[in-house]
Each structure stands twice: as C-alpha cells, then as structure tokens.
C-alpha cells in the first residue's frame, strides 16, 4: 500500500498553523526553505558553518516574530529579508562590510579595467584549462568582492530566480535600485571573469 502523501499546505496556511503553536507546521516551513536560505547565506558570508548558523538564526527569528508577519508580502520574501539582514550584520561584525557608496567609488576609480581575478591568478598562462568547479571557485571569489547589497541581489536573481519585484520587496528598495545593483554586480563579475567570457580560457 502506497504511503499517503502528507498534505501540501501553502506557506500562509503553515504560517497560520505556526501562530497557533503547531510545531510540525513550522518544521515543514523549515524543510521547505532550509536549502534556499542556506544558499543565500553561504553566498553572502562564504563560510559554510557561519551560513548554517545564520540559516538557523533566521528560522529562530521567524518563529519568534511570526505573529508580526502581516502577510502583505510572501512568506519567503519576509524570510529572505531576515536572513539577508543577519548576513549583513555578520559581515559588519567581522569587519567585512563595505558600504555601496564606497564600492561605487572604488569601481569608478578602477573603471572595471583589467582582466579580473582569473587573470591575476593565471598569470602568463591564460589559455590554461580550468575545470568548471575551479571556475566556479573564481566566481565565488568575485562574488566576495561585491558589496553585500549587490551580492544579495545577484544571488537572489541567479540562484533563486527571484523577480525584480520580489527582490525589491525583500530588500525594501525600489525596483530601479534592484536593477541598478544587479547591473553593477553583473558588470563586476564579468570584469572579474573576462578571460572566461572572452573565450581565452578553455573549460573542461
């Protein structure tokens, strides 16, 4: 006999059950979003242990303040907002936080010139073969060089596939700001991975 599938509740149904003290409902929410939350946190703070701690803290906060969730946005944008803010707090505490303004100045001064992290690491052998995993590691380094808010939008877009509107809602910014940050993030990543993008680099 096939096991009956547990009922698939919507986020808001689970949230309402959590408000009534249903622990199982909260567990379902955690299971539904744990990977996504962890991925965002890992992209933001890099360290897997820190990312796992932030994911846990994010869910604890969600449980603590679930009574305040007003349902005017989707549950996951609320959850992501909590997690992104925790990541930014974490970066700030660890002195790895640079403001967007500082970053814009740096970017303008450098003008996005050069051949990026790949060039500086491969030196005189730009036609070296790289594995996709190795290349992804370079991407990770390039992401780390982005300011946190740029990092957040590019991760939400590329990993979660979030719409501009959802990102704006999550970060409490306008859609125009989302587009601007996304554009700058992409420009910087493209500059960092120029060798790969220009085809000077073969990938296994």
């Amino acid at each position, binding site marked *: 006999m096939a096991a009956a599938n547990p009922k698939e509740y919507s986020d808001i149904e689970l949230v309402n059950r959590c408000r009534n003290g249903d622990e199982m409902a909260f567990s379902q929410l955690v299971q539904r979003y744990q*990977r996504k939350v962890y991925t965002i946190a890992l992209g933001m703070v890099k360290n897997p242990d820190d990312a796992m701690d932030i994911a846990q*803290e994010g*869910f604890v906060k969600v449980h603590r303040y679930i009574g305040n969730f007003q349902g005017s*946005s989707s549950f996951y944008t609320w959850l992501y907002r909590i997690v992104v803010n925790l990541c930014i707090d974490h970066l700030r505490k660890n002195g790895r936080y640079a403001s967007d303004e500082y970053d814009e100045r740096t970017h303008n001064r450098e003008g996005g010139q050069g051949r990026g992290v790949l060039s500086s690491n491969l030196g005189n052998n730009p036609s070296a073969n790289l594995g996709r*995993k190795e290349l992804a590691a370079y991407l990770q380094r390039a992401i780390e060089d982005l300011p946190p808010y740029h990092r957040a939008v590019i991760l939400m*877009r590329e990993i979660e596939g979030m*719409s501009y509107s959802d990102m704006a*809602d999550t970060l409490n910014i306008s859609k125009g700001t989302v587009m601007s940050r996304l554009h700058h993030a*992409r420009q910087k990543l493209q500059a960092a991975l120029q060798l790969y*993008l220009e085809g000077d680099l073969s990938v296994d």
Partner: protein
Amino acid sequence: MKQDEKILAQYYDGELNERKSAEVKKQLDSSHEGALALENMTKISQLFQVLHEQSQESTSFEGFDKRVINAIRSQKTPVPFSEKLRVWATEFFAHRKLVWIPAASVAGAACVAVLAVGLQNSKQMIPTMPDRTDSSTWQASGTTDSIVSTVAVTAPSEMNVEEFSLETDNGQRIAVVWIDE
C-alpha cells in the same frame, strides 16, 4: 546604466512583457554587441548554477529542522515589548508606501474633531441649575442617560450652597457639587 543595457537585462531576466520582449529579440538578431552581452550574462548564470550545485552537494540538512526547534525551545525568554514593536513597525512600513502618512493624518484629525464635538456636546448635557425656591422636588432636565431623571431634594429650598445631596427614587443618596457660574 545605459537604456539599452537596462532593457537587455530586463529581457534576460524575463521582466519584459511579451510585446517588448519580442521587439528586443528581433533587435538582437542584428546586434552583435547585444548578443555578446546576452551570452556573457548566460555564461555567468551557468557558473552560478555550478556553484550552487557544489554547495548543495556538500551540505547535509538532515535534522536541521530539529536543531532549529531545539534552539527555539532553549530561547524561552519572552520578546521585549520594544523589540516586538520595532519588528512590527519595520514590517508595517516595509510594505506601505508613504501615501498612508497623509491618510493617517486625515484620519487622526477626523478623530480629534469627533472627540472635540463629543466633548462639547457632553458639556451641554449638564443639567441646568433648577429653581430651588419653587419646590422641594425637582425635575432634572437635559441629563445624560447615566443620571437619574427625577430626584428628591432633601436640602431646604432656600439653601444657598453649591454642595448638597439628592435622593433618588430608589432611595439612593447622591452628593452633588454644583458650580454655578
């Protein structure tokens, strides 16, 4: 950000409507630069997927939900009211445009006006000082619902004081302080 870059990014991210998207697609057929920019965005996206897969492969979430529940149980201290208020306010403001401010101001002003009118009316509801020389029983007029309508005066009719007592129909005594202007 240039206009064409902005449109191209929106096209790539699926943020354009069908008509606009078809227009951009048509333009890309004849724009080498645009096609290259699109290809670069695609390549970056592919790398993100590799990065994502790697992080997922090496991470186990077994028992993560239980860890979270245990962490919640260990933090049983109640949330301070100020913190609750702060979170509530953050949520409240995060999803409401500033248009609510004038709306709330108008609503607030309306409430104040209603209260002021109510207060004014309640002042008018205070019964007028009856003529104490005519009768020992006064019919109070203009009283509010909470004040008995008929009272028997026990003070002498010629009294000239501003504080006296009344006896209601059911024998209850009420102290009255009259401020006669």
